[in-house]
């Protein structure tokens, strides 16, 4: 079974902090994705990566950046956290298909 692991289930940070969310997959998948999930808005794509060191913006990249130094690891970075970035963050991975495997999410609160 594919396993996508997000390093933290819950995280509380302060406004202005730099925040790192980590995601690791164990299936040698090429593609990795970061989403945020908000009630009534569904899952919105922040960034995705199709290869090591390669990344593309999703639908809502503002205020975020990403890093993929190794194939199995994809990090989401909030450069200067703001209260409107309080949300559930989901990481996913896939091979050469739209079948995406998700982690269990990180619930991030920015105070």
């Amino acid at each position: 079974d594919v396993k996508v692991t997000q390093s933290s289930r819950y995280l509380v940070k302060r406004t202005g902090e730099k925040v790192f969310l980590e995601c690791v997959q164990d299936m040698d998948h090429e593609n990795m994705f970061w989403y945020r999930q908000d009630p009534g808005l569904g899952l919105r794509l922040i960034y995705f990566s199709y290869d090591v060191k390669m990344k593309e913006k999703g639908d809502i990249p503002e205020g975020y950046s990403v890093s993929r130094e190794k194939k199995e690891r994809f990090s989401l970075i909030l450069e200067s956290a703001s209260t409107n970035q309080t949300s559930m963050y989901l990481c996913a991975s896939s091979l050469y298909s739209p079948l995406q495997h998700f982690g269990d999410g990180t619930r991030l609160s920015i105070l």
Partner: protein
Amino acid sequence: QQQVKQSPQSLIVQKGGIPIINCAYENTAFDYFPWYQQFPGKGPALLIAIRPDVSEKKEGRFTISFNKSAKQFSLHIMDSQPGDSATYFCAASSNHAGGTSYGKLTFGQGTILTVHP
């Protein structure tokens, strides 16, 4: 922006009922339509998926109906059970065989389904 519109936002049925969740899309290049199921505290997991060359796909109690001309698809859950209570997301993707889409999915807004015993 590519969109997938999902309704209703929430749905309550009694055990044994047949909840129906509807989705509509705009982009005619979409060629893969999955449904994801999410339980509280868990990430979404693929439930069932359909391609536009068929009008219906059934897996167990779950059925997708697809209307290409109307650009709509729906999920039906037969004989619903309390264990089906979850959030359901429809999604759509284009260039499913690879290409430049990298398997990106566009998700609907989600439907919170509650099945009462």
